[in-house]
């Protein structure tokens, strides 16, 4: 997942997260904004631009620097302290708020987000709902009332965030698009609440509140249905210090031509940690979430006749989910292990790739599926230069990608990712190993694609995360399996070949030994899956080779 501080697992022993006594690591395309004079001076208004949005139904106009978070805006500027800071890294959910955006038919739809790592300027023209806004006078919202009745709060510090996650769940239940509300299965509850840590209750009463809130009489502020379409237009580059929100690829590339050093933000699920954890200052930020081309998701046929979809670089995991659920359930399942609802609502596939973390979760899957990238950047002649390349060619070395390999690529962005349509007979398995099942970063992730043709394995692609400095295919292991029957001997050779493919390192998530052993064991699991499938694909009596909760 793209939530990794710029940290190489291999370097954990050496550096970990720098503290105050260690100089900040300069970002590749950000000037080092931390100089002595800047770092200690209270920001001046010249750096700031205005944000127009609705706060709990009331129009607000606020001034904030480009690197202000929604949480800082609420707590510091507006004095709204109901929303809490628990970690300032998007991992605990105490700061959960709901952000309303117009959907295709203009209705306002609310999604949960971590206010601590959401840029305040992304509220431009949006509706922000916080825990203070939910009660209608003295009447609590069902999410709140159910929490009280079911003893869902103890210390109460995580409670505002829990209530907001329950609120967005309640909204999606009542919306239903004319259909019945989907049943609140354990999986759905987990998907809605997995991003909210509670240290006191053990979650049982919170689950009961979630299950019960639908039975409460509707008590919901009327202003929730206000349209948020055009409170204010997005912010184009107005000043030198700004939060820039281009709406077209042309405008984005024009901005990149002038300010290639300005960081790009979409979900902010990784970038904003630079601000909250490393105290980075961003005098200028480019928001790609409103670039039409980058938010498009369309079917396409490549030059080589492969069919599939071009997924815009700024398409969120949440938007991607229905497509994956239909075509790649294993991939869709991974999204739930990759990040919480708050992260899935905001994190993007393009961000996960461009961030190039060795433990990003989607790149190994995309490598196994043979994905391609469509890059766009400024050309010499005021035009847009575009190119396409296989994802295999994108990751070069630790945090080095085709985007930043040389001066010629300066200002390039990921316009879209090509996801091929599943082919008949081709299988995909995605297995992620982490200390905690939900919302954790992988120790090892294996993504395996293959066909079984006349008893032998074909088109075997085995990609791993957490095993090298980049997400990487296990070419030697692939070769050991390609064209072979799925025999114990072939897989033993593949497991042995992993030693040629990878020399993993020890870090906070796992030791090198564990990584080596578990990666090899994932291939053994693959053999058990392939052969079970081979013997009797419909058999229910097949012996369990993994746990249900992890099987995908």
């Amino acid at each position, binding site marked *: 997942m793209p939530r990794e501080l710029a940290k190489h697992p291999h370097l954990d022993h050496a550096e970990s997260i720098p503290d105050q006594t260690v100089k900040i690591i300069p970002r590749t395309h950000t000037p080092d904004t931390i100089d002595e004079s800047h770092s200690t001076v209270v920001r001046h208004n010249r750096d700031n631009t205005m944000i127009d949005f609705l706060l709990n139904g009331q129009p607000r106009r606020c001034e904030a620097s480009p690197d202000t978070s929604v949480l800082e805006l609420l707590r510091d500027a507006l004095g709204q302290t109901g929303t809490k800071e628990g970690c300032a890294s998007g991992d605990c959910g105490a700061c959960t708020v709901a952000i309303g955006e117009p959907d295709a038919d203009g209705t306002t739809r609310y999604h949960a987000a971590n206010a601590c790592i959401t840029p305040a300027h992304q509220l431009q023209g949006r509706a922000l709902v*916080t825990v203070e806004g939910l*009660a209608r006078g003295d009447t*609590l919202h069902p999410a709140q009332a159910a929490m*009280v009745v079911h003893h869902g709060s103890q210390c*109460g510090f995580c409670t505002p965030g829990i209530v907001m996650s329950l609120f967005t769940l309640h909204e999606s239940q009542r919306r239903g698009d004319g259909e019945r509300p989907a049943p609140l299965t354990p999986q759905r509850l987990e998907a809605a609440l997995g991003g909210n840590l509670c*240290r006191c209750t053990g979650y049982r009463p919170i689950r009961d509140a979630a299950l019960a809130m639908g039975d409460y009489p509707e008590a919901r502020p009327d202003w929730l249905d206000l349209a948020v379409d055009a409170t204010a237009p997005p912010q184009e580059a107005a000043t030198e210090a700004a939060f820039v929100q281009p709406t077209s690829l042309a405008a984005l590339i024009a901005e990149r031509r002038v300010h290639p050093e300005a960081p790009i933000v979409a979900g902010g699920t990784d970038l904003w940690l630079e601000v909250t954890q490393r105290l980075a200052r961003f005098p200028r930020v480019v928001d790609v979430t409103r670039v039409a081309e980058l938010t498009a998701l369309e079917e396409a046929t490549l030059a080589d006749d492969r069919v599939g979809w071009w997924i815009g670089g700024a398409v969120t995991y949440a938007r991607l989910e229905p497509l994956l659920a239909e075509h790649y359930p294993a991939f869709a399942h991974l999204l739930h292990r990759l990040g919480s609802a708050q992260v899935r609502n905001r994190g993007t596939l393009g961000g996960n790739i461009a961030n190039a973390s060795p433990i990003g979760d989607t790149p190994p899957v995309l490598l196994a599926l043979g994905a391609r990238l469509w890059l766009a950047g400024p050309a010499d002649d005021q035009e847009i230069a575009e190119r396409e390349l296989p994802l295999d060619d994108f990751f070069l070395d630790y945090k080095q990608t085709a985007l930043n390999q040389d001066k010629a690529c300066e200002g390039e962005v990921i316009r879209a990712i090509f996801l091929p349509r599943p082919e008949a007979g081709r299988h995909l398995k995605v297995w992620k190993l982490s200390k*905690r099942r939900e919302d954790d970063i992988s120790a090892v992730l294996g993504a395996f694609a293959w066909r079984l043709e006349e008893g032998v394995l074909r088109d075997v692609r085995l990609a791993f995360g957490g095993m090298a400095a980049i997400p990487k295919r296990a070419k030697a292991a692939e070769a050991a399996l390609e064209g072979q029957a799925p025999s114990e001997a072939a897989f033993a050779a593949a497991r042995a070949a992993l030693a040629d493919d990878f020399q993993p390192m020890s870090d906070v998530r796992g030791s090198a030994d564990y990584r080596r052993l578990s990666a090899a064991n994932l291939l053994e699991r693959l053999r058990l899956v392939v052969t079970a499938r081979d013997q009797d694909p419909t058999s229910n009596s097949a012996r369990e080779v993994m746990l249900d909760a992890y099987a995908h």
Partner: protein
Amino acid sequence: MRTLTKLSTQAPEAAPTQTPDTRPDDLDSDAAAARRDLEGRIQGSGPVARETLGQGGAGSARAHESAIKHVTGRAAYIDDLKVPADCLHLALALSPVAHGRLTRLDLDRVRALPGVVDAVGFHEVPGHTDIGPVFPGDPLFVADTISYAGQVLFAVAADSHRAAREAVKAACDVGVVEIEERPASLDAVAAAERGEFVRPTHVQELGDWAASLAEAPLMVEGEQFVGGQEHFYLEGQACLVTPTEDEGVVVHTSNQHPSETQKLVAEVLGVPLHAVTVEVRRMGGGFGGKETQASPWACIAALVSRRTGRAAKLRLPRGEDMRVTGKRHPFHNRYRLGVDAQGVIQGGEITVVGDCGYSPDLSDAIVDRAMFHADNAYSLGQARVTGQRARTHFASNTAFRGFGGPQGMMVIEAAMDDIARRVGEDPLTIRKRNLYRPGRETTHYGQSVEQIGLLHELVERLEASSNYWTRRREISAFNAASPVVKRGLALTPVKFGISFTAQHLNQAGALLHVYTDGSVQINHGGTEMGQGLHTKICQVVARELGLDLDAVRITATRTDKVPNTSPTAASSGADLNGMAARDACLRLKERLFDFAAEHFYQGHALDREGMRLEDGHLVAGWGESERRIPWGELVQTAYFGRVSLSEKGFYATPLIHYDRQTGQGRPFYYYAFGAAVAEVRVDTLSGEYRVEGVDILHDVGDSLNPAIDAGQVEGGFIQGMGWLTSEELKWNEGGRLISDGPATYKIPTFGDLPPRFNVELMEGHPNSMASLYRSKAVGEPPFMLAISVWSALRDALASLTSYREAPRLDTPATPERVLMAAEALRRRGESTP
């Protein structure tokens, strides 16, 4: 009387807690089915609602007194308090190395940086520089020796939180600090072998342990590492200090021990204690992490506040909080026990080595408590228990729910599994054989275990209700046929001693005010950290005064209301403070009754003997001669009759004593019991596992509030499960914490709630001691129920050896540790076919 609170209780009351689904079936059948499905699987998911006493008095499942404020965001935590316009914000500079010397610190240069209002370090402290809570050893700032990575070098004050943090970074970048690094001691066992302790070793001994070990038919031994735990209170350490017009300060702090912070702040400032007032309204979680380790921040902020004459706020960002504060002590435990052919312990020795970090803090008492619980619920026979307190270059490890008890229990629970495999019996059989029983009821520290019958009944009831033996047979059959996925099952009991082992802390005070409108305000020495203490205290007062719960308002804990208080710790909050509040109520009642007997004399006197307060009335006499006087009238009349409507209460726990010279005594007023059955499913190829079902039966005596008590049991269990499974603290080779945020330190989340989670409070067994309404403490004991999860994981792994061996499984038992244990068993199996 008038309604006194304007809380919007309307909605929950209007909400149909039990109302059947009113939506049409066809619209909602799936949802309803899903819910029914879930509910069917989770029995006991609702609190045991015993609304027998009405009025919200003690014994009823009332909601948390702040519940509505929690869900609306109105409950204020330290960082939410409105601050004066000139408030300063502080940030800390922390040592990047675990051991060394601070050779240069140029604070003048720091003060000259733009935006910096003040900078303070060791030499700026006017009073005490050592704030060790019990024993010296905790410097407020590094003077010379650096003892852990994260130790505070200096603090910077600026006009905003961000500016202060940036200033610290800028200061370090421009080189105001020079450090001579030295090799760090990071191995507690090696430190103990070198004799490097923060406190002397303590021994408890009963009988001739060596002889009984030598004579026993079988000797079983083992060792284990039990990992530490980060508190991960959701609200980090925080305080806000304002200067007074005198020489003192008012401190708002997220803190379990306001009186100690008052004392330390006064000593650091060099002023009398009466110049310092400490207030705690609530904490966003404490768990022991704010017992001693909330004080330094208050001291630093107070120092800046007095120097500048301005308010000063210090809150720690999560990463700094995790690096600078101590954690649950990691322990290295060893045991050698002699057992008979039936697996019953005859005697032996147990050694527990606590990794205390660099200073004593509370480690003496914590390692003591590990020793007091090295028997858990089992008789050790003739045994010696030795506790060592190793000094290492880590943050000073501190109190955490259970206070060493869980780490001590782990060693005997490991032994139970090991003995079972050795003698070829089911672990539950061995556990039951070893439980304290008549004739074997004396602990290794000389206390006789009471309520042994309750312990046995509790274990047997859970054994039956959880279908332990049926499941055992199913699981054995499943495992025999399943090479990769293995299931495991375990039942483990808990016996936890209740009282501070430092005798003087077992006291409490309360202050009760009745105002002329009849509304009641109660204050006491305990602090609210989410455990529902304030709710329980309000219930006690409502019960004693016969009032509706809404008539009783609790106020923030303040050192100027109830002085010289003990920490809210050791599960003692309700036991001690509830008794003190009750004492205040009883005294006031007596006064009011005396007054009423005299004053309401009209023709004939009220019957003083049977006088009582109930349903908002003073009631005298019975049946025909019953007289009822409304509470409001009583109070008004008493006021005009010049009767004091304020009272203080006090309580000190009787009977307890412990002689540290002999290692014998009765340190605990009573024991709380419980037991849990956990079932797990383990993928032995990947080390992944799931906790599939948990059954708990727990003893709280006569519950003060079943909803709150059930919440403590469930929350404690899940927190304990996190400690033993996913919560892994990792330091790099230099001793620097690298799991320093929720991205790398994984506490349980929603999906870790077991799909089957049956929690029941044991009923019909009031406390045998005269505790508050015969209730029992509930904060810590349930934490250790989670040992069942760890034991079930070992059980699943043992199936790889056909249950001939219980593999060593250090904690936390992460997927990595589980996989490596499975791999070791497999490899051994291959080499010895």
